[in-house]
């Protein structure tokens, strides 16, 4: 993956997240069911966006690091 693609995808994830946890993106998911891991869906939804941010940022970092190493080498 190129650096540009990786940055675009990570940036897009954050913007999507901002939309998904506020009005109007949150509205369809502000519901109790289905419950996931015992949590109401309204609770699980923002938590899932947070948890997914770790692999997204990690993936971005891998690409950024490879790019920096290539630059120095």
């Amino acid at each position, binding site marked *: 993956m190129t650096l540009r693609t990786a940055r675009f995808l990570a940036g897009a994830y954050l913007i999507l997240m901002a939309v998904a946890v*506020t*009005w109007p993106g949150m*509205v369809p998911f502000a519901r109790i069911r289905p419950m996931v891991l015992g949590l*109401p869906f309204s609770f699980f939804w923002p938590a899932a966006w947070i948890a997914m941010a770790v692999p997204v940022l990690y993936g971005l970092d891998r690409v950024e*690091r490879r790019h920096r190493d290539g630059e120095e080498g």
Partner: protein
Amino acid sequence: MERWVFITGIIVVYLAATLVIGLLAGRKATHSVAGYVAGDRSFGLLVMYFVTGATVFSSFAFLGGPGWAYSRGAAAFYILAYGVLGMAPFYWMGPRIAELGRRLGHVTQAQMITGRFPSRALSALIALMSLIAFVPYVTIQIRGAGIVIEAVTDGHIPLWLGALVAYGIVIVYVLVSGVLAVGWTNTFQGIFMVVIAWALGLYLPWKMYGGIGPMFEQIAAARPELLVQPGLDAAGAPWSWGAYSTLILVSAVGLMMWPHLFMKAYTAKDDQTLRRTVILFPTFQLFLIPVFLIGFAGVLLPVAPPDPDSILPFMILNTDLPALVVGLFCAGALSASMSTGDALLHASASVVVEDGVNQFVRLDDRTQRILMRVLVLVTGATAYFMALDPGASLVQLLATAYGVVSQFAPPVLAALYWRRATTAGVVSGLVAGWVTAGFFYFNPGLKPFEMHEGILGLLVQVPVLVAVSLATRKQSQEHLGAFFPARRAS
């Protein structure tokens, strides 16, 4: 032995451990401003991870989080939603800020902004507004510490004494060791907070309802309105989407801009440490899940606590927990309070001296460090006396503080990324933003869609910054050259 004596014993052990760690931490620092404020730029990943997490999550999250979940339901999830949004941009901004800091000698946010937009008035204005935002924030931390100690000792240790002892210790280690004490004590306190939150958050629903799922099933049957956004407002009426959404946005921007967090970019050992801290931050943030579970566990209790913010101590005392657990919980809450309070006290003193006083009177390195220590004491004492006043509406003040600090975002972004921005543009934008936010703070009835005043301030500030910048003369190439290293030819 009486129960409260045993609990007090645990608190004393915890406080003693914090003090020892704080004092030992400073032994290696150089006697310089960079040592006191930026820890000689030496923090590794472990320390950065806990400094960031423990500083972001204060006693507001630890005590206010369950309080919100208990009384306002899904409204509390706003606290969950903004953290990552506020932190992730630091993946790119952090190394950039740190690089400028190393090269141009910055240790504060205002130095970075005024390095690009030279103006002593701007520097002093940023210092003053930072202080206005800091004092209520410290006050909440001190009050939180006092409330918890008073509650778990059945009133044997009153608020004034508990707060005095806890913050007396904070002040001692900040005075002696500077940011290194903040770093190492926060590591200790951060581990404490996370472990205790998860342990209690899983244990309470299991003990009271037989599990998390059964707990939410019962709440869904009895109080379904608590489980869907935007939840309830402070009076128990349905809250608005406008207020919920803009509170998330202003908190994310504010989080990015809080000077005491921003300054931590200068303490990291290297850029990769900063980036890894950002990547791992969401794992720390998930500790809010058990924090909310604690609050929800209280929803169906037959007796109500005296006020929502004391739901956590109230439940701890009313569920027949072993004294050891109560003592550890209290230590966790104190960790949350002190780990934010110490960073705030340290940052406010650094900011006032570096960006306020030092702009007008040239002080040598030694005098600066002495003055910072005096200011740590003065700020701490002011906040302490404010914390004793039960009438002060601190949560309201904190919401305002976010309105103030969120206005730093356009100047910071302009300094880092927009070559065409000018000093006149940044100053007039900032003033316009603060005036707007202040106007809507004092006239809440006029807010469109109940939007947060900080967002309204930003909506005015950005066009003013852009328009005035474009109308004034562009900064010279050599000045810009120091801020924007030549682009690679690739």
